[in-house]
């Protein structure tokens, strides 16, 4: 007989459910209650583009060390969906566990001999306890959480505490949930082999960290960053970002005396209108943004070119999903890097920011508005579905209240009165950034005509070649200026003598951090640099030059960031080895470690880390 997996505070539980069955909140309750025991978790929703009836999964990685990346493999499958039964059972690791509803008997060939099978008559218990069909469904979820609390030694007091917080003022709901929880727990204690080989134990590794998702974090960043106009069009996986902005604004942005709104949110008729509204507001001096995903970016590209060429501040938060076309709307990828870096016809280059987790979504989204106004150009915050729609344990949000917003170079009424030479596209300070006026500033000075056509330094229409080149070169100078303003890369040095380097960015971060630890433990010294923005800082070139070979890890097929590194940072493509993961699931440490160890042998002679 295969030995069962034994592990304390380090395992993966996956819930297989039907969407629309109310399982999501029960599963999140499970994850949150583990956190309350001081044990880090990282849950992931794997869901279809559908409202009701299709399979959905919730994968919870429990890891005392705090690794947040997806691990791969499943130790305990909570199989609640007959539709996906076969695949779900197959996914369990050898020696793993299967928990299922055995109200209806299943033939033996539906199981595996190398796993521990735990059946519980959930439906029968529900039918015996509740008469209302909706209650039967909803409480079934809580009952299995109760059973898991016994099987995994999950502290029922932590769950009850969460109920108390959730149902404050709704005591009837509180009592019925507690009752369902104990119904499941008591049954398991009496009838099931509690505890399992995998189990929990109180720890102290959560600290003051917060548990939140990237979309609401980015929305909050926009609130703190001073965004007052938001225009958006619903698209998975970014819709919850605009909705979170709405709900934060409602709480945090009402004028105290009147209750009126210090913000305007418009749901556009499409992405073209959304970016148009954001650009109009940016042109007129308000901080504005749109939140979207790949297909939205495709639609917005003409407008993005206008904002680049007419030099209008605007922020785009792109929660990337699987492309091209409609692609994989509910799966994750980093496949809009090139589309955003070069969005529009003609020669354009855009500033991209790559947050690694919800905390950086908050920080980068907040900083994007300063950058947009300083650089007078579109700024892209490139998050993805993995960060955007999943809750993560991360550093608490911080904001420096003493720091004023950087409104960039704005020519005021006073300066115009003093007789300042105002040329809308005149490079006064040599950084490529001109001054702008807000419409309505001065009765006779500072007015200008904004256009997407070529213009001279004083915003006058021209089709003269030298004027065009003058303007395009200044825009390049401005892009150069951006390099020192954007978030700088983070270098992780394992060993000063390591010959192998790794470049990674965005949501690859947690998997990479774990992979670095594993590689170090295996004796392979690997240094890493996390790129946090485009254009790239010189640090990236220095890093690559200091290593024999550098892996570039990306979640897309075409090595999009590598393309930018080669064409823009002028790095030698022969030195850059792409490691690409793009099946729509989040990249794992296992994948990175496997690929690096396989290929490291061929690129450099293996050497033990010192």
């Amino acid at each position, binding site marked *: 007989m295969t030995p069962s997996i034994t592990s304390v505070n380090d395992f993966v539980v996956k819930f297989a459910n039907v969407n629309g069955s109310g399982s999501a909140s029960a599963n999140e309750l499970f994850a949150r209650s583990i956190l309350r025991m001081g044990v880090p978790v990282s849950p992931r929703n794997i869901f279809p583009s559908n409202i009701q009836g299709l399979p959905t999964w919730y994968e919870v990685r429990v890891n005392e060390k705090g690794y947040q990346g997806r691990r791969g493999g499943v130790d305990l499958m909570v199989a609640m969906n007959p539709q996906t039964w076969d695949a779900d059972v197959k996914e369990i690791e050898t020696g793993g566990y299967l928990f299922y509803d055995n109200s209806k008997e299943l033939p033996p060939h539906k199981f595996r001999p190398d796993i521990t099978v735990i059946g519980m008559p959930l439906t029968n218990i529900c039918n015996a306890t509740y008469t209302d069909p909706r209650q039967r469904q909803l409480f079934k979820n809580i009952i299995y959480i109760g059973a898991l609390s016994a099987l995994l030694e999950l502290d029922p007091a932590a769950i009850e505490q969460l109920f108390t917080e959730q149902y404050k003022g709704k005591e009837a709901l509180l009592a019925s949930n507690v009752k369902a929880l104990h119904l499941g727990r008591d049954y398991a204690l009496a009838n099931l082999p509690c505890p399992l080989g995998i189990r929990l134990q109180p720890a102290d590794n959560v600290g003051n960290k917060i548990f939140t998702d990237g979309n609401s974090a980015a929305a909050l960043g926009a609130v703190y960053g*001073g965004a007052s106009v938001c225009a958006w069009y619903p698209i998975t996986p970014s819709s919850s970002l605009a909705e979170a902005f709405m709900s934060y604004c409602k709480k945090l942005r009402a004028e105290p005396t009147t209750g009126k709104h210090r913000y*305007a949110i418009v749901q556009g008729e499409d992405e073209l*209108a959304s970016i148009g509204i954001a650009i109009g507001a940016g042109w007129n001096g308000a901080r504005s943004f749109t939140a979207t995903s790949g297909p939205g970016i495709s639609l917005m590209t003409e407008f993005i070119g206008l904002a680049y060429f007419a030099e209008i501040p605007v922020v785009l938060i792109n929660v990337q999903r699987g492309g091209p076309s409609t692609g994989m709307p509910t799966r994750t990828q980093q496949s809009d890097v090139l589309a955003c870096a070069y969005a529009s016809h003609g020669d354009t280059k855009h500033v991209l920011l790559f947050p690694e987790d919800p905390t950086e979504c908050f920080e980068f989204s907040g900083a994007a508005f300063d950058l947009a106004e300083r650089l007078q150009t579109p700024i892209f915050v490139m998050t993805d579905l993995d960060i955007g729609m999943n809750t993560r344990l991360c550093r608490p*949000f911080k904001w420096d209240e003493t720091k004023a917003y950087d409104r960039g170079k704005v020519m005021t009424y006073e300066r115009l009165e003093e007789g300042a030479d105002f040329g809308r596209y005149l490079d006064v300070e040599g950084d490529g950034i001109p001054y702008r006026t807000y*419409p309505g500033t001065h009765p006779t000075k500072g007015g200008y005509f904004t256009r997407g056509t070529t213009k001279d330094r004083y915003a006058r229409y021209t089709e003269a070649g030298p004027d065009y080149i003058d303007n395009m070169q200044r825009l390049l100078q401005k892009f150069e200026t951006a390099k020192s303003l954007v978030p700088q890369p983070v270098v992780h040095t394992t060993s000063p003598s390591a010959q192998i380097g790794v470049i990674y960015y965005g949501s690859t971060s947690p998997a990479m951090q774990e992979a670095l630890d594993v590689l170090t433990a295996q004796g392979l010294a690997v240094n890493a640099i996390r790129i946090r923005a485009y254009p790239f800082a010189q640090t990236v070139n220095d890093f690559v030059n200091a290593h024999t070979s550098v892996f570039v890890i990306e979640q897309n097929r075409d090595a999009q960031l590598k393309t930018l590194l080669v064409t823009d940072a002028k790095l030698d493509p022969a030195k850059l080895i792409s490691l690409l993961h793009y099946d729509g699931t989040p990249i794992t440490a296992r994948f990175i470690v496997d690929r690096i160890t396989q290929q490291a042998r061929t690129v450099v002679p293996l050497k033990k880390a010192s």
Partner: protein
Amino acid sequence: MTYLAKPKLHHPSLVKNQAGYTRRDYEGKISTLCAGCGHDSISASIIQACWELDIQPHRVAKLSGIGCSSKTPDYFLGNSHGFNTVHGRMPSVLTGANLANRELLYLGVSGDGDSASIGLGQFAHCIRRGVNMVYIVENNGVYGLTKGQFSATASKGSKSKRGVLNPDEPVDLVGMALLLKATFVARAFSGDKKQLVPLIKAAIQNPGPSFIDIISPCVAFNNHEGSTKSYDYVREHNSAVNRLDIIEGRDEITADYAPGEVINITQHDGSVLRMRKLAPDYDPTDRIKAMNYVQERAAEGEIVTGLLYLAPEAADLHQYLNTVDTPLNQLGASELCPGTAHLEAINASLR
């Protein structure tokens, strides 16, 4: 004449309006459009309307899309900020600009290709959102800059300069504006400035989306026989329901609804419109009847012009969104950033 620089000298005897500006202060660059273009008459009418209303030119934001009509904002109100956006997307940019600063006057200038073809969606949605603006379509039924293709407002069966018959039904922008509850809807003819100037003035004074469809013949590509947008055709088929004049002041004046007589309508800002009725039974405050009337006359081949609809009650997007009175672009960190105490509370709620 576009190679000539426009003289900047102002004659000292030029009359100033109450805001202290002469008519010349409302002008822009010299037009680059064809001699005789209807659009230039519209620019002149906008200049006159703004001058007569004592509007400070720099408090106007003029936005347009792409096309001949969209070039015109460069030819009036030279001290105003202008924005020549992308084709068919002026309405969204105007909406955003308006959200950022509710205190300016927003003038959207577009064409039939820009608003009825590529931009039909944005045209419709900015009206149904109730954006406070004056939206002018300089409607000639043809693409001028690309040399004479039909636009979506060209009548079915009308003939292009090359002799092709238009196979498609036209989009009626006035009908759509009425349907989507613009608060002010008018149609005018660029060749009749006396009718047009008061309509523009009334539109400026009206809150919410004010729409004017101005038939503006294209002398280069759509002024021939067989066109329904030529000077001759429009003159022959123009059927004005009323004529407007504007009276300043807030004195209440009793309306006289006798057919064919003059009636006074008090606008939302207190100014009074004096309207001479030409169609005795036409009531411009009844939206449903207005829609029927315009359609019925159109079926008879008439181009109904005049003030077609004025909403008795008018609100705008800022009211719907309940935004603060201070323009959003004037709010600073003290109003926009909720501060660290709130952030600590949010952190605590996420544990």
